[in-house]
């Protein structure tokens, strides 16, 4: 998470694009990727170009971001793993019969990986502040935006607090792995109470500095022609890739030539 903040402070062509444009581009991307049918795999492939190009132009390190995506994979597998069990109808794929369940599973896996990657890239190239400003421009209620920002800021503090509690616990619970179930209740309660107290103090600190419910970020440059071109270009690509199955088109072009 701290990594994302560092990456967002880089100065590249991608980073300089208006946050609103990046947000909208990502939304279009997500919508288009999700709109594919559940048996579609090949049509999804061109969409990998978007993250690859962003990685390249924004000069982002691939390995740490891939690690973040890997963290999400177990959940995705958890969602899709039952498909091969339920969907037994067969489909021929290059002469090999495979169950449709596996196809849908793979499709879910690709879709989720692409969407998660796109969202991470959005934050890594925009930063939370500017992302929040973009949300405000879209007239998202300020209370939600503020909630998001504060959650993001205080997750690290909360993690520290929890790890302190766990350390204190394990130092007095020798030869015991993890938390005993009987301690879970008081642990959760403690964390909740500490969170309340912290929230109260933070709110007081905000109030003392004139907070009235409106959240101001600095000026963000106006939309430029470049920004609009970026948005139009990507949207066009996404829509074309949605309507035409590009890998099959290219394939048939080659096989046509060979014939």
């Amino acid at each position, binding site marked *: 998470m701290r990594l994302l903040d560092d990456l967002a402070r880089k100065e590249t062509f991608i980073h300089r694009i208006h946050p609103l444009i990046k947000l909208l581009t990502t939304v279009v991307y997500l919508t288009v990727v999700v709109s594919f049918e559940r048996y579609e795999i090949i049509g999804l492939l061109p969409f990998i170009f978007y993250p690859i190009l962003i990685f390249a132009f924004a000069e982002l390190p691939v390995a740490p971001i891939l690690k973040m995506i890997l963290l999400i994979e177990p959940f995705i597998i958890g969602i899709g793993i039952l498909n091969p069990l339920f969907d037994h109808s067969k489909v021929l794929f290059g002469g090999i019969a495979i169950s449709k369940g596996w196809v849908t599973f793979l499709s879910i896996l690709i879709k989720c990986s692409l969407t998660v990657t796109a969202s991470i890239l959005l934050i890594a190239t925009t930063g939370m502040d500017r992302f929040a400003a973009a949300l405000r421009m879209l007239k998202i209620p300020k209370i939600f935006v503020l909630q998001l920002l504060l959650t993001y*800021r205080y997750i690290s503090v909360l993690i520290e607090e929890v790890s302190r509690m766990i350390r204190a616990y394990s130092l007095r619970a020798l030869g015991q792995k993890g938390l005993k179930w009987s301690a879970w209740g008081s642990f959760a309660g403690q964390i909740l109470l500490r969170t309340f107290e912290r929230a109260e103090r933070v709110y007081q600190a905000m109030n003392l500095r*004139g907070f009235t419910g409106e959240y101001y970020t*600095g000026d963000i440059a106006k939309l430029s022609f470049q920004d609009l071109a970026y948005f139009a270009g990507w949207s066009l690509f996404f829509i074309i890739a949605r309507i035409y199955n590009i890998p099959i088109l290219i394939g048939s072009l080659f096989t046509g030539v060979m014939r």
Partner: protein
Amino acid sequence: MSHHKIEVKNLHFSYPDGHKAIKNMSFSIYHGESVGIIGANGAGKSTLLMLLMGVYFPDGGEVLVGDVRVTKKTLPMIRQRLGMVFQDPDDQLFMTTVYEDVAFGPRNYKLEEEDVERRVMQALEKVGIPHLKDRAPYKLSGGEKRSAAIASVLSMQPDVLIMDEPTSGLDPKSRRRVIDLLKSFEHTKIITSHDLDMVLETCKRIIVIKKGEIAADGTAVDILSNEDLLNSCGLELPLSLQNCPVCGASKGKFGYIHEKIVVDKEAKKELRLTRE
């Protein structure tokens, strides 16, 4: 200048659970004064600060800032004049970068972005951390966080600075920096602390609180050298006024008055160390 005066009259406050935190407290703090508020844990120091800032409202009595009573209605004006630095900087630094945090106050007062930037940079330079402006608060060290928290209050250009334990949890060098910083401020200052040496250095006047009441109010030198008073209030003499930790010699005008005459080199070294 009367408008910097802070007046507390017959203040009473109890927490919702019935605990009486402040009992009949009265004092005035004038323009340019530096006042240390000291007392044992739970004596009511933090509660008093919260009452001054209008976070809590008293059950009886009143707080006047300038000639204005602290009420819900006057809060915006009061809070522009009083700047409070919290004990835990993590409570105060809630934005994603130091710059944003220091800019939070001025932006809430709807200043132009140019003015905001000028104020932010002034405040950061004042506390000596302009190079940290784009860093995330949670990545800073304890001392840097403290400086950032102070800057976030200075950017609002308050008349009075109120600090809750400004040196708690700092290493000696960071503590020294904060003390020097506090000494350089010309604001009216109200500082609560258990770090009595810091209070001795930064404040001219001391108010001692014991169980929600004022136990003493006087000059720092008088109060901080009054061993009986401090002991009875759950405190002790500042370390710099205590006897030599090695031989127990008491302090004179120029340092410890050691009675031992130094004979060998080894002892000489030791003695020199304690003398300075």
